[in-house]
């Protein structure tokens, strides 16, 4: 039973606050109040931050355990994510109509993790597109993202056995300036009328302009970003939207890479822990017991 370990951890996670509380309170009562002299002594661990250390440690262990299991060949289930299944359908439709697919990897540089994840998704999209022999247009906003996008797409075409179909002219560096880039992408949508628009990455104020233009050309639109403030504009104008963590799950979903899937699983278990803690905390609070809540106080 592979889920036994997390349950043990959960028990530890919930019981530790009590034990630590008893211990530290006991210790404080036993020891005299800290004097100036005591404060002058060097300490190697800040006991006030024990709660954070524990929560982080438990989470680290969960993530590492599942990454290791995944590395050993264990496979984990990932729920259906409609927006990702729709990518293949959208590419299929573009092929039928003889129109290109547009992939915008956001406007942030490579130092943003979303841009990196967007490249992983782009690799998978490139594989699909190559199979259907549909053109894939990738406008890029940052000069340093260009070589990354080129390599990713080329590799995708290679993997699906159609290296000859790769067209370097379709990776287009438009401008570093946000609105100049937006105007450039708008131009592509209006002139070349892609049948599928994929907006996956870190987007800012340009999101509503892109989604609006795409909506007016009648393309199937799939968007995904972890920039929460831009989600409303994608939700109302796109057919599918990947919300926050769903965007990060996309890479695991599409690539099935062990360490990504394992991380997802570890993070799900941590959520269970937190939910249990939240329920316990709320119930205790309702009955006037505040010790559990106080243990979580950040000091």
């Amino acid at each position, binding site marked *: 039973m592979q889920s036994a370990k997390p349950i043990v951890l959960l028990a530890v996670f919930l019981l530790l606050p009590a034990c630590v509380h008893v211990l530290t309170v006991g210790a404080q009562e036993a020891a005299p109040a800290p004097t100036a002299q005591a404060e002058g002594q060097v300490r190697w661990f800040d006991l006030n931050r024990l709660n954070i250390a524990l929560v982080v440690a438990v989470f680290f262990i969960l993530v590492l355990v599942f990454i290791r299991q995944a590395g050993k060949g264990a496979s984990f289930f990932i729920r259906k994510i409609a927006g990702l299944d729709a990518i293949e359908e959208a590419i299929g439709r573009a092929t039928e109509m003889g129109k290109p697919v547009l992939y915008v990897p956001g406007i942030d540089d490579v130092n943003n993790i979303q841009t990196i994840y967007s490249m992983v998704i782009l690799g998978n999209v490139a594989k699909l597109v190559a199979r259907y022999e549909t053109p894939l247009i990738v406008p890029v906003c940052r000069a340093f993202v260009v070589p990354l996008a080129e390599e990713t797409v080329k590799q995708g075409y290679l993997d699906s056995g159609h290296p000859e179909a790769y067209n370097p002219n379709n990776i287009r560096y438009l401008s570093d300036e946000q609105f100049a880039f937006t105007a450039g992408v708008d131009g592509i949508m209006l002139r070349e009328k892609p049948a599928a628009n994929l907006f996956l990455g870190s987007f800012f104020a340009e999101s509503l302009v892109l989604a609006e233009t795409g909506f*007016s050309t009648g393309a199937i639109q799939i968007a995904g970003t972890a920039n*929460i*403030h831009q989600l409303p504009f994608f939700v109302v104008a796109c057919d599918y939207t990947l919300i926050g963590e769903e965007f990060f799950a996309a890479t695991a979903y599409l690539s099935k890479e062990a360490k990504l899937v394992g991380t997802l699983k570890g993070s799900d278990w941590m959520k269970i822990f937190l939910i249990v803690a939240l329920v316990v905390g709320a119930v205790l609070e309702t009955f006037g017991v505040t010790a559990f809540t106080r243990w979580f106080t*950040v*000091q």
Partner: protein
Amino acid sequence: MEKIDRRYIFLAILLLVLVPLLVPIGLPIRVSREVQSGYDAVAEIPDGSTAYFAADYDPATMPELHPMALAALDQLFSKNCKVIGACLWPAGPPLLEDALRRIGEERYGKKYGVDFVNLGYKPGNEVAMVSVGRSIRATFPTDFYGTPVESLEVMRGAASLTDMAILVNISAGYPGTKEWVQQVQSRYHVTMVAGCTAVSTPEYYPYFQSGQLSGLIGGMAGAAEYEKLVGKLGTATRGMDAQSLGHLAIIAFIVLGNVLYFATKKKAP
């Protein structure tokens, strides 16, 4: 509907915003809980204490954030507080300078270097925040003008953020309120009041509810409320009528767009 030229929509918006600026209606402003608590938090610090003023914004968001920066500085200087201003946004220092001079020097007759200072800009986002929490002097060896901070009177007794009575953050995004809460407020437990763009306000409500933020001033509307509390009406208050009409226009467009969409869709099959 795609056939309607966007420019008619643009023109409608321009008129709706322009007219109330020319002919003000003067709708009454009501103060929300988030802004009131922010004002109260500043009011509660001892008169004459020192405040850290983190001006993390740039010209793009000036209409929203500059009015609240002015209002907050007005409240601080009216309490004879000393203000240490600094920026983590490169385009911030000239705006901070403008705000400090306009309120501190011109309105309250305070002196640069004695009652307030502009430490200028540092890159590094979270790194710079943690570093300021540890030591202001190590992070900002000189002020905006290149004067060593040891020689400034206002910096005496202000070694790190823990010596501050309050942290006021005016934030346009990253790095800003979220990172100050994560890296500094949680670490050093300074009282913190945040003024931010309306766009990022909803994301910060959890921090306000949890008490990590003692006040949350959101957007131009929040700035107008703050101006009302401070008693110095400025551009935010002036913009509120236009703001109201703009919002009504957006709602009308959403309703109209959907009515037309569903009407033509029903006809089609």
